């Protein structure tokens, strides 16, 4: 049976103050995001408040931009209709000298002896080729986190693989 597709896969930033929502709108619009000020669903309202809706896939980058601009966010709601959570299936493939960690649709491969990131793969959002260029060739414990460089859910899933790869090599992601 076919389900009707939703109009857009949007999530909501919730704010304690209307001024924060208005300022958040300005910050995200200037950064190139398509956002809309909306009233949050009744069950999520704290009072007479405003929320910012944007495509769910853009959440990681947008959250970082709001934080950098000092905009106070109360919460992020992935799906205003019903709770959802990110896929947390993580698997590994041992290639001998290299190990590949797969988190959802994203993969990172590291040389065991040196900790060098030799490849990232999977995904389909535009930050994934960008992250590939930024990360390949770096030593994983010195490399920036994908969640700090990327902007999308694919980037966030790559971060999960990155953290797991660090753990497999006996350390912690910075």
């Amino acid at each position: 049976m076919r389900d009707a597709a939703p109009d857009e896969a949007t999530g909501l930033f919730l704010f304690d103050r209307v001024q924060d929502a208005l300022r958040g709108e300005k910050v995200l619009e200037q950064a190139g995001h398509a956002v809309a000020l909306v009233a949050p669903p009744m069950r999520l309202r704290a009072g007479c408040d405003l929320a910012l809706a944007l495509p769910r896939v853009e959440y990681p980058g947008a959250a970082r931009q709001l934080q950098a601009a000092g905009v106070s966010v109360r919460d992020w709601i992935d799906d205003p209709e019903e709770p959802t959570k990110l896929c947390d299936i993580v698997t590994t493939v041992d290639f001998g000298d290299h190990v590949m960690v797969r988190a959802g649709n994203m993969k990172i491969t590291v040389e065991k002896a040196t900790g060098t990131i030799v490849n990232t793969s999977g995904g389909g959002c535009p930050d994934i080729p960008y992250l590939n260029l930024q990360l390949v060739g770096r030593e994983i414990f010195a490399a920036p986190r994908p969640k700090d460089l990327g902007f999308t859910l694919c980037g966030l899933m790559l971060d999960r693989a990155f953290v797991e790869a660090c753990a497999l090599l006996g350390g912690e992601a910075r």
Partner: protein
Amino acid sequence: MSLLVVGTYPVAGGPLVMGPVSVPSDSRVQVGDLALPGGQGTSAMLGAASAVAAHLGLTSPWALLAGDIGQGDGTRAVHEALGDAIEVSRPDVIAFHYMQPVMALMRRSLDTINRTAPHASLVADAGGMYAAKAAGLAAQFELMTPDVGEVGFLADSRATHPAYVSHYLFGTQGFDPEKLARRAYETGGAARVLLVKGACDHIVERGETRAVVDTPNVPALEAIGGTGDTLTGLAVAFLAAGFPTLEAAVCAARANRQAGAAIGATPASRAFDLVEALPGVLGENLCAWTGACAR
């Protein structure tokens, strides 16, 4: 037959470019005067598609691209310009590739295609595939090329991004591509043909497996960023060359694996190593595989 690839390249604020694709001797894919960054993504896809066009003596693929590192600006630009690109390139095959998966933009682009190029075969991979499936438009596509995680996404009618795929679709024994591809088709989440890439490549038509390609077996290909992109580039180029879709998918799977074997692929290889091996692979095999011989 002509091919138009719609996608992005990983440069913040990079300009919108439209035109035929060339691959000069330094292996950097160019659209017009713009040399694209290497690595995985639409660049690798275009490199593979160009290799097929060159081998068969066909016109170069066209590309409509803009810079985007994940904020969606380049994605919006290419969707906006699609009508103009169709008017200039008159494509028979339109392929959506790396882009922000925004459903409203994909709906608008399919409206444009239905008005201006209704005969075109539609292909989607990467973010283009995510947007098409999430927007309920997958059934309008001729071919999609999901990988292990993505076919679960196509089969999960409630998921709007692969990051939200339900656990139960993966089962306790790992993923079953044939079962997931069938479910994806039955729930409207799949194109008419799926090329499910993995340890074995499954070619599935209307939910039924028609072919499995598993040789040569090159496990390292999964680790290399961009080998899925080269596979998609091969498939769309064969489709644009007039191959039936199933044959295009099978040839793409064979050629991609053969290129991996030819370079002795390791987990540290690059997608463009495969692209550089394709002229030799196509020259040695394509005529025998299909009867499509170089001009």
